[in-house]
């Protein structure tokens, strides 16, 4: 397995649920909405994912990142009891993952697949009524109204789903996933194929669900999406490569550094930077220098003084920012390198 963090979840609050078919089940136990231990799935000789372990706290938004074919969707389907794992164990919404518990787990969770999978000839209301029946929900009308209000679609309840845009269909699918007040909501590539406006709408919806304390397991390969929405992220590439808060991952993968922009290159940068104990290394960039430091706050004043003494025209000194994309690409590049003969 690659470099994997502690996987400790950021539990916000224990979830309490009411009114759904799952009420008849024992209440969710423990602090974690999801506990996954060395879970794996093979299809014959092909490994879909292997040796995956993590925990997700109630109320947490957990991002599950990885390239196409990394095993993200298969992991979601496995945790949703659509697929049987070939190794490992898991607890989903307080229920142990097993074939016998499949129905109990499915009553407690929702999965929004990548494709909305709506009955296009049926109206929005008819689609939601069908699923309210499948979850055996009480107060069907009230629940549907609340779900549609949550996705701002109350005024489209009578429209056939086939007449809706892709973004609106995605919102209907999200309303459907909210109907049973799930303990864990799995969103599988919720913005796949959406235009920027529809993507922003879905992001806003996820943001509002997050504010309501819904536990969300979000699979995506959109890194800005994960960075914006998720408390923690895990990067999967068949095995789990990294897990933690986005800023933790950046720190873990990249050394801290300062970007120094100067009007003109220094005459002797080795003499300037080499004399500073705070600077551990440097490289020249088109606009100046990137300096590796252990403590940017301590190093920045010393570097500024040294540059002034060397008659350099300083434009800016700032801490280097690595995006989640940098982290992701670094890891995926490592994988590609490792697979090379």
């Amino acid at each position: 397995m690659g470099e994997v963090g502690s996987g400790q979840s950021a539990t916000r609050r224990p979830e309490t649920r009411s009114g759904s078919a799952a009420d008849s089940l024992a209440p969710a136990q423990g602090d974690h909405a999801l506990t996954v231990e060395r879970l794996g799935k093979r299809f014959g000789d092909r490994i879909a994912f292997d040796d995956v372990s993590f925990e997700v706290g109630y109320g947490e938004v957990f991002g599950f990142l990885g390239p196409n074919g990394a095993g993200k969707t298969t992991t979601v389907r496995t945790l949703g009891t659509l697929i049987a794992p070939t190794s490992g164990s898991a607890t989903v919404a307080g229920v142990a993952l097993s074939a016998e518990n499949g129905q109990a787990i499915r009553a407690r969770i929702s999965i929004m697949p990548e494709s909305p999978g709506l009955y296009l000839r049926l109206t929005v209301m008819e689609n939601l009524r069908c699923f309210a029946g499948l979850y055996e929900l009480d107060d069907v009308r009230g629940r549907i109204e609340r779900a549609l209000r949550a996705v701002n679609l109350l005024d489209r309840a009578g429209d056939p789903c086939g007449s809706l845009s892709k973004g609106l269909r995605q919102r209907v699918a999200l309303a459907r996933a909210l109907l049973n007040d799930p303990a864990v909501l799995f969103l599988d590539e919720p913005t796949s194929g959406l235009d920027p406006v529809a993507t922003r709408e879905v992001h806003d919806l996820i943001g509002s669900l997050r504010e309501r304390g819904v536990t969300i397991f979000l699979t995506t390969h959109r890194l800005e999406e994960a960075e914006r929405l998720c408390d923690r992220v895990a990067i999967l590439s068949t095995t789990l490569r990294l897990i933690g808060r986005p800023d933790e991952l950046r720190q873990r993968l990249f050394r801290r550094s300062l970007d120094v922009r100067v009007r003109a290159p220094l005459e002797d940068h080795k003499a300037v930077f080499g004399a500073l104990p705070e600077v551990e290394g440097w490289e020249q960039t088109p606009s100046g220098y990137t300096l590796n430091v252990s403590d940017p706050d301590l190093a920045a004043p010393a570097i500024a003084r040294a540059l002034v003494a060397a008659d350099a025209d300083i434009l800016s000194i700032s801490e280097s920012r690595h995006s989640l994309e940098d982290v992701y690409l670094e890891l995926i590049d490592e994988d590609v390198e490792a697979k090379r003969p």
Partner: protein
Amino acid sequence: MTFSRRRVAAIIVKELQDYRHNRFVIGTMAFLPVLFIALPIVQLLITPAAEASSKLDARVGLSLLYMLLIPAFVPSTLAAYSVAGEREQGTLEPVLITPIRREEFLIGKALAVAAPTLTISYAIFGIFLAVAKLFAHPGIASAIFAGSHVLVQLLFTPLLAGWSIWVGIAISARSSDIRAAQQLSIFASMPPLAIIALIQFKVITPSTGLALALAAALLIIDALGWRAVAAIFDRERLITGSRR
């Protein structure tokens, strides 16, 4: 969790709403029976009134046997669509994510196919009886209404429909392509057709005993059908296309 009638009802209602929004499906379902009714009616109307009673009885019996092809043929395409169609449209996964049991899903699907099938079959039979009463020679009409003909028709219609539906759904649950499923499900209608052909070619002689034996066999098949189909209904294969 126990078997839920509410979940079965949710599937049935959804299917019936789908038919209502797509009347073309029911229209095409009804088109084939119209062809099936044409031949018996023509036979009925051209039968001379003075025909010997044994010949008349055979002719009436054969006409009614043709009518039994309707419940065997009509549900095959709908049943074949039931699982493979949902899978192809991407609607199967959201349904299987819910707490529905495969038995509930399959019974819901079967009943949703049975409803229009029985409606159409009985409606066509009603038309046939009405035409016989109104336009056929009174002797021929009374031959149709006499004896056990009507009772056999009423009894065999759901039994044959059940056979065809379960075979169609079984094919649908195992097929990776909806077109292949629909073509294969046509074969589900072949056994009843073969029996009618054997009767027509006088290889076997229709009798009360034969009818009872066939009815008993169909009843057993229909009763066990959902269990057999549930056994081959594999969520994982249906969702991923892979075998465990």
